[in-house]
């Protein structure tokens, strides 16, 4: 249970993932916000209209995945670091995952790191494809990693130094 462990259940995760059909069309946002708290910067950050205006600021984000182009503006704006972008079409074998990562040192491009699941357990190797740490991201860098497609739904974090 998320409330007692901090780890969302598979059902929780399935509920916020877009359809297989949408995933197959390219980069798309995954908003892992499961609790009604007063917060709406994801809506404010979204330029494509994919994240809808909040009727009540305590609502869960309402995402229209068909309007999302995977721009990642919301990723570093989410105070809960609850948002990532997945591109399942990245290559034949690999999916690209864009994660918010607020630890030093930052990984470097082509470095192979561990892909961790939502409980922090290593599930696969991940290759760092890009690291963005621009001023606009305001100290929440975005790390893009490539993982084998079968792990795209499981990986949610990275660990270095192994």
């Amino acid at each position, binding site marked *: 249970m*998320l*409330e*007692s*462990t*901090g*780890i*969302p259940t598979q059902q929780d995760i399935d509920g916020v993932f877009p359809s297989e059909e949408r995933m197959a069309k390219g980069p798309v946002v995954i908003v*892992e*916000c*499961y*609790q*009604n*708290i*007063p*917060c*709406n*910067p994801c809506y*404010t*950050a979204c330029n494509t209209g994919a994240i809808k205006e909040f009727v*009540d*600021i*305590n609502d869960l984000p309402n995402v229209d995945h068909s309007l999302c182009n995977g721009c990642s503006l919301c990723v570093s*704006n*989410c*105070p*809960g*670091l*609850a948002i990532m972008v997945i591109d399942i079409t990245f290559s034949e074998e690999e999916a690209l995952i864009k994660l918010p990562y*607020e*630890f*030093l040192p930052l990984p470097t491009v082509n470095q192979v790191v561990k892909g*961790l*699941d*939502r*409980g*922090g*357990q290593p599930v696969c190797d991940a290759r760092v494809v890009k690291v963005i740490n621009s001023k606009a991201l*305001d*100290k*929440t860098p975005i790390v893009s990693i490539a993982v084998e497609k079968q792990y795209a739904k499981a990986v*949610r*974090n990275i*660990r270095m130094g192994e």
Partner: protein
Amino acid sequence: MKPVEILVVGGGPAGLCAAIQAAEMGSKVLVVDRNRALGGQLIKQTHMFFGSEKQYASTRGFDIAQILLDKIDQMENIEVMTNTTVLGLFEDGVATLEKDGKYIKVKPKAIVVGTGASEKTLAFPNNDLPGIYGAGAVQTLMNEYGIKPGNKVLMIGAGNIGLIVSYQLMQAGVQVEAIVEASPTIGGYLVHASKIRRMGVPIYTKYSIKEAIGTEAVEKAVIWQLDDKWQGISGTEKELEVDIICISVGLSPLSELLWQAGCEMKYLPELSGYVPARDENLQTSVKGIFVAGDVSGVEEASSAMVEGYLAGMSAAAYLGYSLYNTKELREDLLQQLNSLRHGPVGERINKGIASILIQSEAAASTEA
């Protein structure tokens, strides 16, 4: 005796916003804070804030402090006294301050008390060993002074502060061995909990600390599972090798000045302790004394800021100051508080406030 129009006690999120609003309406404000710099807890908050744009959502706490301090710097009718402690609020309206060993008396026409809250502690064997800190102290060491408090930590309490400080400890290169939480569920925002979990840190709910072990300083912590009556269960002990035990088991309002001033006080668990009765404009039962932020009930910094603006507005209006759009601004602030408190967490806060709200003609005072 120094004449003062509005005295703001405490330069945290509530006090700073109160000062800004009151000064914007034309009144002269004195902000007093016992720390060496203004900003209160904001200056230690490295995480992005929740809420909406109006409460600087998605901006980091210390950056919000800077935004507010820059505004204050530009306002000529705000005087700031740091390293200054307000010692007492007396019945004749005199407030006494201490700065650099000097005793100062001021006579404000209105007062906004935004003293915040202090950390609760926890009783367990050897809780006086060096290496046992309140979460706030750890945050001060790390984020204000750049000092790493230790290498391996046990965090007690999975409320927002426990979760946030655990994350900051990890960012500083400290290993968090575990977080224990006596309740069956995590009290803080689950997004904070998930952030820590995916770093591999276990959160044990229905667990607490049994004892700390060490001779000169903390060497180990023993945690154990709690039964439904919150009692430790023998045989469930786990020993953790840690040099830091960090206590984050809640806050209680710092309301001594309000007691002394004779404000009507009530114990409300929803608001985390003894809090003052207040009307919708945040005026207490003592005319001319207003409250904002954690001292009136422990909540988020975002609502403390909104309360600050409201209390500052009410104090200035009490002295006859107004803006052409005071009424609209007030409505907007009330609306912001309402929406911040609309969710499941806010329900409890609203319930607490409803039971001490003073219904009075004062509710119309800012419309004068």
